[in-house]
């Protein structure tokens, strides 16, 4: 993928989990490859434990991959913090914790500028006010404390802070999940508008396929730490190729689809073969023994032995 702002190449992340007496090795990400170009939004969808947040943290340099490479702006990722000040930003999930409760809203918004050492005091104040206006807030809010703001307003402030240094790459991790439907729509549209204006590369992570599909150009679906499908948003407005994608679609559209009823299995992740096997409605013996590789199918990449569904097996 040329021209990517951020690129992951076969990234694996392992870590030890649990207390000393029940220590396990967890594969949070396996062979994850993806790239985000300038002006593009990549959606990343999956449920809890799918590795989507880990992948986001790898892109931000918060976690170093166990194996594999991270490329930022054409160069290997530089983990010294000076190197990337102001170039990366994130908007995270919890509105109640998105801002330091002890700081004025304006101080929080200006913090990335101060860290990057851009502009004097007057300049910083002017830019903070402008940025607040751009996310649809009144500049006087800069003098308030976070607890005086609503959840939607706090997420707007978090977006203002993320964009104030004109970063090349922004991660939105479940940025609208905790908001009410009517406010969620406001924030989703704001993200779309700001990206069209500023042209940053964005990674939009969510468990909600409907929200991801709405803001993203391309979508990566993850399950059990692996990429199982990578397709354009257009494709996912239709029928997904991977049974897991179809399960998510059935949930968000509540459509009846025989191939989409994922079981709620007790041991959810298979240790051998395809990780979805215990829950998959169309699993075969091949799935139990052989791990499916990610392979192209039209303009989609899919990791499934039976991407055409039950009909395709015959």
């Amino acid at each position, binding site marked *: 993928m040329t021209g990517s702002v951020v690129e992951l190449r076969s990234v694996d992340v392992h870590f030890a989990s649990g207390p000393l007496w029940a220590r396990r090795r967890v594969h949070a990400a396996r062979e994850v490859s993806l790239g985000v170009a300038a002006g593009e939004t990549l959606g990343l969808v999956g449920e809890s434990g799918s590795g989507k947040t880990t992948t986001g943290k790898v892109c931000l340099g918060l976690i170093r991959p166990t194996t594999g490479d991270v490329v930022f702006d054409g160069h290997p990722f530089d983990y010294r913090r000076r190197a990337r000040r102001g170039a990366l930003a994130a908007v995270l999930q*919890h509105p109640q914790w998105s801002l330091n409760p002890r700081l004025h809203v304006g101080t929080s918004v200006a913090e990335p500028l101060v860290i990057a050492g851009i502009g004097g005091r007057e300049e910083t104040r002017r830019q903070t006010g402008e940025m607040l206006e751009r996310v649809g807030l009144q500049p006087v809010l800069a003098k308030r404390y976070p607890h005086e703001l609503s959840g939607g307003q706090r997420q707007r402030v978090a977006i203002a802070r993320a964009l104030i240094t004109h970063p090349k790459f922004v991660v939105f991790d479940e940025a609208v999940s905790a908001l009410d439907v009517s406010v969620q729509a406001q924030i989703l549209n704001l993200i779309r508008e700001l990206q069209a204006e500023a042209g940053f590369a964005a990674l939009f992570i969510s468990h909600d396929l409907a929200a991801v599909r709405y803001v993203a150009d391309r979508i990566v679906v993850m399950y059990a730490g692996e990429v199982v499908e990578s397709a354009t948003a257009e494709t996912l407005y239709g029928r997904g190729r991977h049974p897991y994608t179809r399960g998510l679609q059935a949930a968000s559209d509540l459509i009846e689809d025989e191939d989409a009823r994922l079981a709620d299995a007790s041991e959810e992740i298979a240790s051998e073969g395809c990780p979805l096997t215990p829950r998959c409605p169309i699993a075969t013996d091949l799935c139990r023994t052989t791990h499916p590789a990610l392979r192209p199918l039209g303009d989609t990449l899919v990791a499934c032995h039976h991407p055409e569904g039950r009909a395709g097996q015959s």
Partner: protein
Amino acid sequence: MTQPPRRYLRLPFGNDRLSLVATIVLVLLVLAGLLAPLLPIGDPEAIGAGPRLSPPTGDFPLGTDNLGRPMLARIFEGILLTFVVSTIAVLIASVVGAILGMIAAYTHRALDETVSRIADMLFSFPPVLLGLLVTAILSPGIHSAVAAIVLITLPAMVRVVRAATLDIARRDFVIVAEVAGASFGRRLFLHLLPNTAGVVAVQTAYSISLGMLIESALSFLGLGVQPPSASLGSLLREGALYLDIAPWLAFGPGALLAAAILSVNLFGDGLRAIVDPLEARPLR
């Protein structure tokens, strides 16, 4: 639409009157100790200022001790000493403990393991026993009382701050600051410290009450403050000797000590209610 009623005056503990009263008592006690030399209650170290072992009279409101020294003045001197010794010791423990706890929680895992293990070890000494050990090694006196209080209150402070820091460090705003490239110092002092300060304050208040208990216990055993200085514990030690013939010698310091520790504890309760409000939900 009706507007909620406005409050024009805000007291520090809102409608928690018990904590407010306790705070006032505490301030009065410390003031009494500080202003004692200016009050017309006599010189606490003037041997033979009055008759020996006198019961409370007009001249000596709390009587006199076995050397004829006025008890009221000695008690005021004692309360100040008890309070100052334990507060200084606890402040040292709080600063050291807060720094250790924060750094342990927010740096390398190996350092965290080491600090936690040492805190656990210190924690596994029963408090008074640790005080005994310290005085046995350092020889009795104020310095060993301070050392004992520091060692006894430090591990709890480290644990509490470490837990609070772990909690704050995983919050969104700290992670976002790290993404923006904020330095370790900035994250520590701008983001973590102000948000754990409440917990540190509460723990400090409780530690001071424990410190006063330790100091007076050691002095009671004759291992803390040495004559001619007096703390409430050492006054009680003298009083216990004359319990049969002059019980007022013991009761004055005893009551005051109990009142002081109770006030610090209630003050701590009030602080905790502000930092960590816990709503009661009854069964119906």
